[in-house]
């Protein structure tokens, strides 16, 4: 029963672990102290990944829907079934939904399958656009679509700013590095309406009203300029549009920002002073499910660029991905707006290069993400889906109308039940594959156990499917796919299994110049000047209409940050993490709404008293959970309660779940 080294597959931190394999089963897990990022730590999820790997809810053979149920079929039958249907459809009628938990090789191949064989540009990950927006903001600003800094040097930082979300829950081990730096003397500032664990530990916690983080960041930039604390030399040498940006900032009145956000000028000054004094400064924000919106990310980037913290060793702006291979999936071009390696779909030369590389003609029409396809595109007839959580289930009625849903998955889940044909696939330890964490660290996970009999890895099934559709890809191993990736995607140029087998990951770009990977973006190596990212929205209305405020005085935020993993189909298959993440729900079996201590005492509410949350179009009954963690005037309902109060939330959730900057005006009534 030896321990095998590998990488945790839960969140985008990519911690090193040892799996204890007994027979063909994983019977335990242990951290790896030598891992450069996790340094011997795991979070509650990582400590129980073996519980997930034990699950018997596996899909073990191809299935075709026959009437109301599935019947097992051979791979050949399933392939024929798909070929038959796909031949009748054009690219515009198809969409492909990838999984951010799948490996780079699998996602690369899925993208290649979509673009070269299905001839569709409708391909994306889930509905959350945060990672895509983050990549676009950073590409526009500095030409580098991910973390510009490094986590290895975090402990030496002077200043860390964390904006939005709850990193301690989402990416605990990255948060642990931040907490550690803070205990070592780093100045830690948090901008978040909720009093998260990190906020409680911060020297400075700014709690702007919901929906106003963007304005606060703009205000901070304005304060920075007023304090004349900017480095003109850096701006003139390394940026292209600083004058225009400075001119725009002049339009901002600090008093208005103070009024809007509820943050005083003194607090803003404290933050900007610490930022500008620091030699080494990092900003963190989550992408994916708890993401900020585009303009807020842009404002954060601009603030750091203005402070001269982009492109210098020991500083940077660090988006953090919530799911294991979210970054890698985008690297592979599983997006309607990026080709592999982040070439823009508007770049004709990039298309030609790709056609050359793949030796086929490609469609140029603008693709859409799957969420948009399902809500807006009437033409969509078929969907290809890789192992998916239930996020997209709100389109269930639209999905039911489709002619063909092909599902590739390791585990049963509600999405799979909608499929017409299901192909099993291996779990992440049943086949080799690389995964790219938040830090751009590409890590090889090697096969440690045999899949259930007859289960093929996704790359093989896709290769079979390609062949059945007349394309001989001729891959002999998953390693050969990495060979192709390294030829196509410059960031991955210097990567190979051979190299990755003897290292605990390498951070892209790994190329001839940086054979051992690259720690951080350096202005000298950027190959271009940086630019302030366009934002708009200063002129937007400040708060809701006054009449609405009177009738609906509370701002309701529907959040996923704290409890994100709750409704995750992966988490449901564990024991202890499920118990821990449900502990709150067990205490409030009928769901809860969080209300500030101040409001509760003003309204005379007791803990667990039933209340009615009334919005313009719907209402819901919940128990009050009195909390010091939220601001007066706000209410907070965690998204996982979805399961219990679908009517109310489903109407609002499409907007609300995008990020926690959205809110809904509601009023609160006691239930008598």
């Amino acid at each position, binding site marked *: 029963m030896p321990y095998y080294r590998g990488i945790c597959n839960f969140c985008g931190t990519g911690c090193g672990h040892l799996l204890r394999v007994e027979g063909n089963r994983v019977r335990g897990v242990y951290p790896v102290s030598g891992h450069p990022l996790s340094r*011997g730590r795991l979070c509650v999820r990582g400590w129980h990944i073996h519980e997930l790997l034990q699950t018997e809810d596996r899909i073990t053979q191809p299935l075709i829907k026959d009437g109301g149920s599935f019947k097992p079929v051979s791979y050949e039958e399933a392939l024929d079934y798909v070929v038959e249907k796909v031949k009748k459809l054009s690219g515009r009628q198809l969409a492909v939904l990838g999984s951010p938990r799948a490996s780079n090789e699998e996602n690369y191949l899925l993208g290649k399958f979509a673009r070269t064989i299905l001839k569709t540009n409708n391909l994306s990950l889930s509905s959350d656009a945060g990672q895509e927006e983050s990549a676009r903001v950073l590409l526009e600003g500095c030409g580098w679509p991910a973390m510009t800094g490094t986590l290895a040097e975090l402990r030496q930082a002077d200043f860390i700013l964390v904006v939005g979300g709850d990193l301690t829950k989402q990416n605990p081990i990255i948060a642990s590095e931040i907490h550690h730096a803070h205990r070592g003397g780093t100045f830690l500032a948090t901008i978040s309406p909720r009093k998260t664990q990190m906020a409680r530990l911060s020297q400075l916690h700014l709690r702007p009203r919901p929906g106003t983080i963007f304005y606060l960041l703009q205000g901070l930039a304005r304060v920075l300029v007023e304090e004349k604390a900017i480095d003109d030399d850096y701006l003139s040498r390394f940026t292209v549009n600083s004058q225009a940006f400075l001119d725009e900032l002049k339009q901002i009145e600090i008093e208005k920002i103070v009024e809007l956000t509820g943050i005083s000028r003194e607090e803003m000054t404290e933050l900007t002073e610490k930022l500008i004094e620091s030699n080494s400064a990092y900003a963190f924000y989550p992408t994916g499910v708890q993401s900020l919106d585009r303009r807020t990310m842009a404002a954060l980037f601009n603030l750091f660029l203005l402070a001269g913290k982009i492109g210098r060793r020991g500083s940077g702006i660090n988006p953090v991905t919530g799911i294991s291979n979210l970054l890698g999936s985008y690297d592979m071009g599983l997006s309607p707006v990026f080709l592999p390696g982040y070439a823009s779909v508007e770049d004709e030369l990039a298309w030609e290069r790709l056609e050359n590389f793949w030796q086929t003609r490609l469609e140029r029409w603008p693709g859409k993400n799957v969420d948009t396809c399902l809500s807006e595109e009437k033409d969509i007839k078929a969907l290809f889906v890789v192992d998916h959580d239930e996020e997209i289930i709100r389109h269930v009625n639209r999905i039911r109308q489709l002619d063909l849903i092909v599902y590739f998955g390791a585990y049963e889940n509600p999405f799979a039940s909608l499929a017409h044909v299901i192909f099993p696939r291996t779990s992440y330890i049943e086949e080799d594959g690389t995964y790219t964490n938040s830090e751009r660290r590409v890590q090889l996970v090697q096969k440690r156990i045999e899949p259930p009999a007859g289960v093929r890895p996704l790359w093989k099934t896709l290769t079979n499917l390609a062949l059945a559709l007349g394309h001989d890809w001729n891959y002999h191993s998953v390693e050969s796919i990495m060979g192709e990736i390294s030829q196509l995607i410059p960031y991955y140029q210097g990567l190979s299994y051979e190299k990755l087998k003897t290292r605990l990951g390498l951070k892209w770009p790994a190329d001839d110049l940086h054979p051992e990977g690259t720690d951080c973006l350096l202005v000298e190596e950027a190959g271009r000047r940086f630019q302030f990212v366009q934002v708009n929205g200063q002129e937007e209305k400040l708060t809701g209409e006054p009449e609405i405020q009177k009738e609906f005085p509370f701002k309701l935020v529907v959040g996923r940050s704290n409890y994100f993993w709750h409704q995750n189909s992966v988490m449901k298959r564990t024991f202890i993490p499920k118990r821990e993440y449900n502990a709150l729900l067990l205490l409030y079996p009928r769901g809860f709404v969080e209300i500030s201590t101040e409001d509760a005492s003003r309204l005379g509410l007791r803990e667990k008293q039933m209340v009615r949350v009334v919005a313009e179009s719907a209402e819901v009954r919940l128990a009050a959970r009195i909390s010091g963690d939220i601001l007066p005037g706000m209410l907070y309902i965690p998204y996982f309660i979805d399961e219990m109060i679908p009517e109310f939330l489903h109407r609002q959730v499409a907007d609300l779940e995008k990020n926690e900057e959205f809110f809904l005006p509601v009023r609160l009534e006691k239930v008598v």
Partner: protein
Amino acid sequence: MYWLTKEQLLLLVKKLAEEYKIFGPRHDRVSGEVIFDHLSDWSELDLQAAIPYNPPKFILFPHYEEILKYRYQPETKEVRIEQINLLEPKALIGLRSCDLTGLLCLDRFFLDQEYVDEFYLAHRKKLFIISNTCLRPFPQCFCVCTDSGPAAKDGFDLDLTFTGRGYLVEAGSKKGLALIADLHLPEAGPEALTLKKKIVDDSVSSFDRFALENKAWISRATNRLTTGFIKPEVWEYIGNQCFECGACSFVCPTCSCFNIEDANLASGETNRLRTWDSCSFEGYTKMAGDNNPRKPVEDRRNKRFFCKLSYSQSKKYLRPGCVGCGRCARVCPGDIGLPNVVTYIRREITGESGE
């Protein structure tokens, strides 16, 4: 005492392997990790390696174990319950004294209280234990503060001390003596005792100042914990750092909390699983319905340190529950391993600042 050459060590392992499954420390080249693991290739056994990152607890008390299997057919009302018996003899080679002490704590807890834990006993029955004296402390070690090292005192079948040219071997049981006789190991003269004492003394004196200073502080902290004279603010501070990952319990050689779940299999059978658990989890004390007697995180942290150090818990193990291996300090995302907690308690007592 007897002599064992480096070459004979492999012979010894080979002899043991005839009867036992071999476990010992090995090095993972890529990560540099020392892992206490099942060794199918005995040449991987590395007795000079640092203290393994994982304690050998998993061998007797696995992370995830099926303790029962049953099949229930509601139609026929037929129930078949099977106990899963794991009586594989195992040899643990190269246990550090802290880990051996931890194992003896588990023995006292699982076997010497009101009830005997049959599942632990099944693993424990046929065990051959070879301990290995630490010639120097590793970073974070403080076994000198918890009376559990650097050399083993009892509980082993054989105890090894490396002298530079070979191993001094001491037998701790009849099984151990029989193996020595089997291998015809030469007896060491009276000078061997002096040599071992010198080796151990040298090892003790090379513990760093921090560990030696903490020796007194650990007993003062124990006193304070037992009497409850620790300010709530200290626990609150510690609670604020806690990530509730459970790592401190999982890596602790003496922590033995577990969870039990019945998992239904596709075959129609059900496995009763016993898995590691931790008192730092909120769901740990949560009762079905509407009540959690131990809610705030500091309540739960407090509980763990009380369990490790207080006198009343010591009665259970006949010693403190902490064996000074320092692993909790290395795995903790919140830096609240036991040595740091002692430091926080010390600061409270002396009024030192955080610097």
